[in-house]
């Protein structure tokens, strides 16, 4: 059998392929995005980007009822968006198997919170598996389909950033030949109105008992005996940290199924070790389960509910070993920044200059909150910029709306900005919304969306017309500006802020990182003219810095957007188009 290095996400995709999955629908979200990108490369599997996670999951459940094996992937906060259909899909169960991958982001490498998705498995009464490396990502995806069809339930596959984005070896198998099952009308199973749902709830409760019994003997819940002074219960990446830290000097109960949890298996393991630790990143879910069943464990009293664990930290907490020394050097931090040539930069400079209150959203442009632009006041969740701005404006006097805007990306607007804009129009707040249309889903690494004209598989698609959508919602003032033209942006912005009705400004220019975008020659600073006034630094371009009191352009990354030249009153920037 062929072996291959794969990141966990690619291995999940391989598992979907081998399991005979027919239908994939997802919305991108770090660290889950690559599952869907990889599965799209298999011709045999239909795969698409949906406008948001709720639509993706509903489409997957529809595909299942229609008879196919279906899948949706999302990040942890995407599961919040998709929770509505999932909680009731728990009642309807499946026809073709359904697997829902959810990737948690411990340490918040690329997220607005670090919620623990295991809560959802319990709350929605559906099983959850958690792989610890790429091979398990593939194997568990295949097992999840078997469980889904055997127990008539969607199955969650929980990942973490470190499992999703770490490569390890995977043994490849062949694709199962799974036929799409015939659709059969079944009102009492698929129409969840009260009388039918009451009957299905009984089925759900019995299923949970059956799954609990399965957890007691499931092969993926493994006991690995070593020294018995220390016993460890762990799953996923936390298991790998524990194994790294203690090796054969401890015994392990590695849980591959993290909901429902076994009781007898844990009790039996507990009886074989002197002291039992639960090592779980984020919340105390295993620990609470043990305590509920009267099994004594050490958990969150010594381990944090925040951030990622490390083997060093585990050895420190359990063995009392000293932590390794940190870095003593004075190294200035290097936060992520808007790229050279980023079309968002000009808008954020103008927002900062006008000292506006900026209701922000989720995307690259959240980085506009960082110095020197500092032009984002709030960031909550996908779409909240628009709805939040409406609330802010409604509780303040009318002058407030003349000093406040919402900023939202094209993909985020389609994801969940349109409903907020409808609310603004319906309830008449004179709010000003800026759609930062960079013609791609940027932060997650350039995914197509309904406004780009291409599907996930690269086929042409109708282009969603943002102006027409805004007008159809009822916004009569819709203006398109080029964010590289800061003067025009400022003029339009002032005009729209003054207007006593809702308005939308679409700042349109494709992401500078897109291969289709032609760059201009890099600019250079005429050192004889430069007086070191630092005006050009105010736009926060990583390509410009001061060397010996003069501005210098890093020509290896400058894309010649010319924003710095517009900032310079002395005309020091030369080359490029000018």
């Amino acid at each position, binding site marked *: 059998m062929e*072996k291959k*290095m794969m*990141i966990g996400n690619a291995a999940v995709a391989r598992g979907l392929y081998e399991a005979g999955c027919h239908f994939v629908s997802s919305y991108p979200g*770090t*660290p889950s*995005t*690559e599952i869907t990108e990889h599965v799209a490369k298999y011709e045999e599997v239909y795969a698409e980007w949906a406008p948001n996670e709720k639509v993706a999951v509903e489409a997957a459940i529809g595909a299942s009822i229609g008879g196919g094996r279906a899948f949706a992937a999302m990040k942890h906060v995407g599961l919040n968006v998709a929770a509505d259909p999932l909680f009731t899909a728990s009642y309807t169960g499946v026809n073709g198997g359904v697997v829902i991958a959810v990737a948690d982001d411990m340490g918040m*490498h*690329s997220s607005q919170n670090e919620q623990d998705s295991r809560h959802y498995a319990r709350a929605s009464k559906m099983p959850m598996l958690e792989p610890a*490396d790429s091979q398990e990502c593939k194997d568990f995806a295949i097992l999840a389909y078997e469980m889904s069809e055997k127990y008539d339930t969607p199955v969650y596959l929980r990942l973490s950033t*470190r499992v999703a*984005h*770490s*490569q*390890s*070896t995977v043994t490849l198998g062949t694709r199962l030949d799974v036929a799409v099952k015939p659709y059969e009308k079944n009102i009492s199973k698929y129409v969840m109105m009260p009388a039918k749902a009451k009957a299905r709830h009984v089925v759900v409760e019995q299923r949970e008992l059956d799954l609990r019994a399965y957890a007691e003997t499931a092969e993926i819940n493994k006991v690995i005996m070593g020294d018995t002074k220390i016993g460890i219960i762990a799953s996923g*990446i936390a298991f*790998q*940290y524990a*194994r*790294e830290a203690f090796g054969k000097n401890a015994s392990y109960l590695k849980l591959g199924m993290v909901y429902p949890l076994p009781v007898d298996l844990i009790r039996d393991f507990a009886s074989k070790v002197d002291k039992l630790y639960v090592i779980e990143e984020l919340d105390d879910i295993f620990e609470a389960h043990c305590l509920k069943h009267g099994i004594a464990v050490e958990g969150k009293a010594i381990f944090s509910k925040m951030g990622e664990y*490390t*083997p*060093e930290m585990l050895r420190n907490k359990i063995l009392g070993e000293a932590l*390794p*020394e*940190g*870095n*003593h*050097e*004075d*190294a*200035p*931090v*290097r*936060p*992520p*920044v*808007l*790229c050279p040539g980023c079309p968002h930069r000009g808008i954020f400079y103008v927002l900062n200059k006008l000292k506006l209150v900026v209701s922000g959203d989720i995307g*690259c442009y959240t*980085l506009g909150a*960082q*110095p*020197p632009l500092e032009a984002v006041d709030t960031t909550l969740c996908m779409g909240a910029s628009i709805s939040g701005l409406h609330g802010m404006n409604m509780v303040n006097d009318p002058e407030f709306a003349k000093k406040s805007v919402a900023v939202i990306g094209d993909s985020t607007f389609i994801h969940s900005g349109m409903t907020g804009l409808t609310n603004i129009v319906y309830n008449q707040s004179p709010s000003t919304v800026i759609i930062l249309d960079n013609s791609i889903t940027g*932060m*997650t*690494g350039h995914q197509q969306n309904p406004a780009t004209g291409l599907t996930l598989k690269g086929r042409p698609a109708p282009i969603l017309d943002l102006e027409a959508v805004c007008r159809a919602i009822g916004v009569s003032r819709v203006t398109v500006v080029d964010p590289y033209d800061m003067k025009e942006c400022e003029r339009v912005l002032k005009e729209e802020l003054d207007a006593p009705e809702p308005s939308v400004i679409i700042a349109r220019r494709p992401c500078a990182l897109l291969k289709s975008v032609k760059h201009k020659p890099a600019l250079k600073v005429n050192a004889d003219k430069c007086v070191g006034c*630092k005006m050009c*630094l105010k736009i*926060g371009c*990583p390509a*410009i*810095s*001061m060397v010996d009191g003069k501005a210098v352009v*890093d020509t*290896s990354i400058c894309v010649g957007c010319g924003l710095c030249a517009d900032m310079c009153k002395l005309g020091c920037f030369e080359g490029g188009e000018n």
Partner: protein
Amino acid sequence: MVNVLIVGVGGQGSLLASRILGTLYLNEGLDVKVSEVHGMSQRGGSVVTYVRAGEEIASPIIPVGEADVIIAFEQLEALRWIHYLKKDGAVIYSKQEIAPMPVITGAAKYPEDIYGKIAKYPVRQVAIEADKLALEAGNVKAANVVLMGAASKILGGDEKLWQEALVANVPAKFLDLNKKAFEFGRNSD
């Protein structure tokens, strides 16, 4: 066990570098884990990739003080991650300086004499003009492969396997350029 830390600024090509190393060790018959960085931190932030190879690898993350080699695409990043290097380990870094935003805005200063600062540690340091060598090879973006060439001498291993790993991971149309960059790096010291 071999632990290699690859550090740099988001967008400098650490993904390719880590995949070259991953392929190399896989072809040597070792168990390999490589952690990658995707998402927000890719946008010009400080990025770290871990490559681990040995008989059996559990955690994909290298503990502090246990890296055998650090490959840094930028010198401030070499300094930032230096505590990950074990005693007698080696740090190979590009002399390129990229100012982080706090330095650009004037909130912080770019450290002076990084060579001198690293010299205080019981480690070997190799500083090379990776961006200039890459430009000579044909494209400044190949600085990552120049550094891999320099690292190949320190990490050792069959030169043929290195070449195979390079071929397996770079697009065919850039292969000649990257082979040149690798050679320049390998002969840089």
